[in-house]
């Protein structure tokens, strides 16, 4: 299930289900985002955790999902910044410190992170065989190569590719299209 606009207000009220969705959809990808700036896995997780826990009782959250995502990324970015500054790790992390102030670079990192996050959520919900093949398609493998690698017939691979495409189309119409309507 996807975290959506309606869950944002529920976070403020400390609704545990909304929090479960938030963790399921965003915790890992934000942690990976933070690790981009040279922080350890543990430190990155702590930063995201602190950000998430503060959402409880916070009644000033943006109502729109994209605005809320921006808010999350900005919050972890600021925490990263403070973390490196406070811990006097600045010298060894001079480039990271500059990276964190580079809005264009951050934009790129967020796009990349979001792309992976959305791919991961899509792949997660596919039937196992379909998933296996879909991942290889995204990696640019041809049907022949996939068939060879997985010990399947080319026909099977083509059928599964169609299946994956259909699932994707359904998902798109439900989840992501809503984002584009205002473009």
């Amino acid at each position, binding site marked *: *299930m996807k975290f959506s606009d309606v869950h944002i207000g529920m976070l403020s009220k*400390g609704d*545990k*289900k909304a*929090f*479960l969705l938030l*963790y*399921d959809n965003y*915790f*890992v990808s934000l*942690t*990976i985002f933070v690790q981009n700036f040279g922080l350890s*896995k543990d430190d990155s*997780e702590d930063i*995201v*955790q602190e950000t*998430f*826990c503060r959402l*409880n009782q916070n009644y000033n959250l943006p109502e729109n999902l*994209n605005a809320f*995502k*921006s808010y999350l*990324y900005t919050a972890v970015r600021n925490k990263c910044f403070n973390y490196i500054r406070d811990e006097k790790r600045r010298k060894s992390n001079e480039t990271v410190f500059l990276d964190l102030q580079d809005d*264009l670079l951050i934009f*790129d990192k*967020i*796009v*990349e*992170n*979001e*792309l*992976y996050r*959305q*791919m*991961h959520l899509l*792949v997660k*919900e*596919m*039937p*196992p*065989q379909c998933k296996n093949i879909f*991942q290889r398609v*995204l*990696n*640019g493998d041809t049907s022949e190569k996939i068939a060879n690698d*997985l*010990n*399947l*017939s080319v026909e*099977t691979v083509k*059928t*599964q590719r169609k299946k994956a*495409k259909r*699932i994707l*189309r359904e998902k*798109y119409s439900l989840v*992501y299209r809503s*984002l*584009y309507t205002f*473009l």
Partner: protein
Amino acid sequence: MKDYTPFEIAGLILAKRNNSITEKEERNLNEWGSRSEHNKLLYKRLLEESIDTDSVEKIFEGYDYDKYYKECCKKIDKSRRIKSIEILKWAALIAIPLTVFSLFYFRDNETEVYRAMADIHPGTSSAVLILSDGEKVTLGDKNAGDQIVKDNIKVESDTLKYENITTDKIAYNTIIIPRGGEYVLKLSDGTKIWLNAESELKYPVSFTGNERRVYLKGEAFFDVTKNEKSPFKVVSNDHVISVLGTEFSIRAYSDEKYITTTLESGKVSIDAGNRHAELLPGQQSNVSNSEMSVKDVNTQLYTAWHNNKYVFDNQSLREILHTLSRWYDMDVNFEKYDLGDLRFTGELMKYTNIVDFLEKLEALEKVRFNINGKNVLVTAY
């Protein structure tokens, strides 16, 4: 010129990679990509460079938010407690009975069940095939790849196929699908059959004579290859469906009162004992020991399962969970019998986590699902 958020750009790039982008979206993305050298570079990198999803998945696998989620829940409880203590102080000033009430009230709030204890997973492609000589073959090990079971019987992905088989003798095979399983079968005449969890089908490896007869227990969706000279018959005890070529779904579980046949296209006729009915597309028959009825239905509700979905329309919680328990291999109990009469409408993608679905139901009605291992206890909120 519109300012795009990184989330919008990511969505557009993903849509483009999957070829599901619309013309308008593509124009927008290209326009954005041509705005600056920087945009162009990012656009090129994410679109043209091959993205290794395997390693993306591996990275994700290395993380677990569980511990952190639990910790966060504790913090939420704590903040509630502090709040309730504050209220209690005031309540104590006003009246003691009110204090007692508040205490119970807030304590109840804290007993929300955390569901990480759930050990319920969606089903997988799995089956046992019993050959005519009694030999048993386990199907559905996804590492096995394509395999040849015997002569002209082979497995391709999640489908068992019979091809070019000619024998004079009638030899029967039986395929058994366990709870939490499913399998697809393609018979020698080209007929395709989707078998749902906890089902069993007995069929000849090749069809001879003037009819094609198979025996079913449980639930299956048939896409029967047309052959006017040889009608296809599905037999469940004394319930016989006869067709020439069509698509239909049948549900004949021995622990359910009715045998339900839902026709998607073509024409079928049904005989049960001395009763007879014919179905037109969009119609459904329900047959029990003593009665037979035909009605118009939304066929989606009864056939969606073979397309990766379960769809429910104003069905009782008892029916819904009974259906899902076969696929998720879980045991369901109701604390009070009445709870099973609550009605719900909704759909569930078959390969997703059941907990998300149950939580949606919780949000709609005053029920709670307490999950422990494979057991689900339904209680009132």
